[in-house]
């Protein structure tokens, strides 16, 4: 689908209208192009969504063609963390530590119902964190239980479009506002 035909993407239109920096300077162009086309994910999968993430990297729905070729095991070298799976109380500090170790610019994709809101374990579970939003700031939510590989690819493409509409200035503003919470 052509990018220009993508008219029903409300959030992207909102971003454009609010004047948040679509194509301000050529430098921003080049930097954004470089960042969005080579997002390297961190190997982080806790449960069932992890298998669908692996299936997205598998030959049928290959996401290496979108630039996410290499999975980095160390958070210092990764760009995006795809939180695939349920986060429980014991794992939440570990996730926060991993997120803090990643260097800027870093993005977070919440994959699956468990990472968005606790999913099937929302009611009557004493140890599930109801949504990874409580721990780290999220950029893209991919719903499903588990989401199909095509859905995860769509989520990653949304992330790429989001990166395209950002400049260095607005990225800093976003981080400051979250750190002060």
């Amino acid at each position: 689908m052509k990018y220009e035909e993508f008219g029903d993407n409300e959030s992207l239109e909102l971003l454009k209208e609010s004047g948040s920096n679509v194509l301000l300077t050529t430098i921003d162009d080049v930097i954004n192009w470089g960042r969005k086309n080579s997002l390297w994910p961190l190997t982080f999968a806790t449960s069932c969504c992890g298998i669908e993430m692996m299936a997205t990297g598998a030959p049928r729905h290959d996401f290496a063609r979108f630039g996410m070729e290499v999975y980095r095991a160390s958070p210092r070298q990764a760009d995006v963390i795809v939180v695939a799976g349920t986060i429980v109380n014991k794992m939440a500090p570990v996730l926060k530590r991993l997120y803090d170790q990643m260097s800027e610019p870093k993005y977070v994709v919440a994959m699956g119902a468990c990472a968005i809101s606790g999913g099937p374990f929302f009611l009557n579970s004493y140890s599930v964190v109801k949504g990874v939003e409580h721990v780290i700031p999220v950029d893209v939510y991919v719903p499903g239980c588990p989401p199909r590989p095509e859905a995860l690819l769509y989520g990653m493409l949304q992330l790429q479009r989001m990166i395209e509409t950002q400049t260095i200035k607005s990225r800093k503003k976003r981080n400051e506002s979250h750190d002060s919470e």
Partner: protein
Amino acid sequence: MDKIQLGEFIKTLDKDLEIKEGKQFTEVMVPPAKLYSLARQLREREESQFDFLFCLSGVDYGPDLGVVYHIRSTRFDHVIVLKTRTSDREHPQLDSVSDIWRTADFHEREVYDLLGIKFANHPDLRRLFLDNSWGFPLRKDYVDDINIVTK
């Protein structure tokens, strides 16, 4: 041995035990003091040779706390169920069978973690899934206003 013969065999080991013919397996109610010696005999006697403990579950029976052991023999393929109960909810204590069946090690840690029952002579009794500040979630009187909805 089938269910009836197992019942009679248990009676020969100790005639005071209460034996029930369940729908599937023979169930033996054992007081906590006799559990370890009975388990040892069941393992070592020639006629029974119960060497495979396949399920150890902790249950909260209302006022009592109990543990259920499902044991099988690999040689004769018969199954027996041992049940113990203790009515002490503050400091429940049972004997560990982890030197008879090594698999009881992890299972007893899980029962301690979720129900609070301590096992004497366990090599390493620590909490397994949760940390020390949690209560014992599997108990029926576990209260957690934020997460658990009681109708």
